[in-house]
């Protein structure tokens, strides 16, 4: 017997098949948006030769890691943001009454096939970035080329889950959550050096967004961090991502225990 989650997922896809037109529309829109994101980088480099001390190819590599990692996370766990709908309506009761992991069900029941399209776009951008960027190829770099976007995906996934979990206490937390998910992606797509002061310290180091694309990109490019982060830390993204995922899981557990349901 296949996994019950798989069956939940198939049921979800079947329920969605009625909405084919919006599927196509969504794909068109997301392609346009992705292209605009990439175009932004090109526009920046028509004005300036470098961004935070990095050349076009180098920044493009950071954009590429995020461009693949973020949609991967969004595809796999992005729909966790729908948690607040479940919490508000008390629908989360039904989730807790089934003999399956609550998070697993939520992800399987709301998985949106549309988001798969963006993963493909992201993959294209990443491959182009690998060709364009002046990468210092080595066996370790080859491994990191594969692990970097995956770690980014795990890290963003943790942010998605963590930010959504806030809804157990604060239902109107949607915009707050977006600040960390979409805001985090935008932060991570650029070299940490372009940001300053407190903002950099909080987002890059306290929240760890420097580990998403900036530091692994430095490792791939064979450059040291001009801000003085030790070289070995550039290789630590997978560990940081796993740590973030562990924290998010703990936070999620606490959230579920605080679920209040609604009146009968």
């Amino acid at each position, binding site marked *: 017997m296949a996994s019950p989650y798989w069956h939940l997922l198939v049921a979800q896809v079947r*329920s969605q098949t009625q909405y084919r037109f919006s599927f196509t529309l969504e794909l068109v829109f997301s392609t346009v948006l992705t292209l605009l994101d990439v175009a932004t980088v090109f526009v920046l480099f028509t004005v300036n030769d470098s961004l935070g001390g990095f050349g076009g190819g180098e920044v493009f590599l950071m954009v590429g890691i995020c461009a693949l990692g973020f949609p991967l996370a969004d595809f796999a766990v992005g729909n966790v943001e729908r948690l607040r709908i479940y919490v508000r309506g008390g629908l989360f009761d039904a989730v*807790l009454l089934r003999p399956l992991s609550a998070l697993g069900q939520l992800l399987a029941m709301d998985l949106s096939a549309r988001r798969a399209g963006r993963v493909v776009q992201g993959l294209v951008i990443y491959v182009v970035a690998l060709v364009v960027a002046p990468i210092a190829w080595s066996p370790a770099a080859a491994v990191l080329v594969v692990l970097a976007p995956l770690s980014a995906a795990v890290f963003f996934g943790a942010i998605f889950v963590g930010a959504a979990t806030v809804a157990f206490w604060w239902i109107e937390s949607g915009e707050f959550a977006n600040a960390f998910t979409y805001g985090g992606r935008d932060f991570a797509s650029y070299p940490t050096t372009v940001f300053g002061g407190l903002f950099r310290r909080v987002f890059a180091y306290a929240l760890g967004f420097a580990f998403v694309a900036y530091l692994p990109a430095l490792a791939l490019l064979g450059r040291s961090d001009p801000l003085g982060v030790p070289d070995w830390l550039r290789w630590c993204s997978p560990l940081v991502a796993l740590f973030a995922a562990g924290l998010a899981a703990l936070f999620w557990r606490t959230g579920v225990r605080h*679920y209040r349901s609604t009146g009968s």
Partner: protein
Amino acid sequence: MIIQTSALRKDFTVWRKLGRLRRERRVVTAVDGVDLTVAEGELLGYIGPNGAGKSTTLKMMTGVLTPSAGEVSVCGLTPVPQRTRLARRIGVVFGQRSQLWWDLPLTESFSLLRHVYRVPPADHAARLRRCRSLLDLDAFLDTPVRQLSLGQRMRAELTAALLHGPRVLFLDEPTIGLDVLSKQAVRGFLGELHATGDTTIVLTTHDLADIEKLCRRLVVIDHGRVVHDGTVEQLHAAYRSKRRVVADLDTAWPDGLTLPGASVERVEADGLRVTLSLDGATAGEVVAQLAQVVPLRDLSVLEPEIEDVVARLYTGR
């Protein structure tokens, strides 16, 4: 004991807005020290006014809500930490919430549930067959759930809750909003399920006919506390519910007439109809006395109404 709670308690923190930034923190106790034991195979009616804590108790028993204090064990498991194991052993119907997939035909919801609960196909088929015939599901098995009538949906929910062969079935207001026929279908089905003795049933309801038709044991909860736990008869005895004799007369009831062991509750229809409530005397004795003092045309004996008792319970807070 298949269900056991001791000093079970649930507090909710409510924040009240006082000003732009000032909030007042208030703790509302929804369930306040409930001790309850339910034996295997029992059918327990759990009633109380709105906001008394019925649903909250059920949600703590099913692993949806974490208790603030006290103990709860169902099927020997602690609901929240052992939620997924417990979920296989219990079935839940919340009248206002669906366990079914809104956009899918009913049969597909059922087969999905088979995968979710990992039920062997033969068991699943046998249980489904039984529910199909007892609950008359065949007419709407291929209809998407969102198009079912409330009565149809409730029958479907009952089936969905039983397909994995749960040892305990929790029902939160299963007859709410149903028409008379659907109510009867649901009650009849629950009665039969109870008669087989394999399934323990806990039922909350506002419809006291559910209780009278189904439950031997009744637990009344108010303000989060158990105010009665016993049989329906014990409830009547405790609150001195009285049987009544209503007599239609050929001549008007003489003013001031009294009978031993009964008291006059109402005189209506220009004195031609009198309602006596029995305090000690039997209906037979009262009728015999009546026949001696007034010309009787017609008689009826009214059993005490559980509604009255419960209304008194709720208002006598």
